[in-house]
């Protein structure tokens, strides 16, 4: 589908349960990706899906950032978060 090829811009507000997703990374490999998107949570409502690759956090490119760095950026983001993500299948092309 054409639609799937576009990166997604997702904006979400923090809830008492957080944003409702897990950030995953593999040691020694660049790139952080989305997992365990909570049904009905802020992240799902913003359009995040499992296996989306994170390209930007609040306008900052994080493709070469470590897991820890990206986690810190999201935590320092306050009560709202903007992420640019791409489907893994698209990202790897």
């Amino acid at each position, binding site marked *: 589908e054409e639609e799937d090829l576009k990166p997604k811009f997702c904006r979400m507000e923090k809830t008492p349960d957080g944003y409702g997703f897990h*950030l*995953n*990374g593999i040691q*020694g490999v660049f790139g952080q990706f989305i997992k*365990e998107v909570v049904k009905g949570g802020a992240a799902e409502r913003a359009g995040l899906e499992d296996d989306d690759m994170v390209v930007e956090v609040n306008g900052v490119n994080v493709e070469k950032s470590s897991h820890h760095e990206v986690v810190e950026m999201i*935590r320092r983001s306050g009560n709202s978060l903007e992420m640019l993500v791409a489907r893994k299948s698209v990202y790897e092309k």
Partner: protein
Amino acid sequence: SQAMKKWVQGNSDEAQEEMAWQIAKMIVNDVVHQSNHNSPGKSTKL
């Protein structure tokens, strides 16, 4: 093997300590290797 000789000959405290040390190192190395191998990923709830 130095440890083994001492173990067989004298069974001294020193030899026992050496043996325990070697085994402990083997165990720790194994654990480190296993955990690196089995969970190369990091996941953070946000």
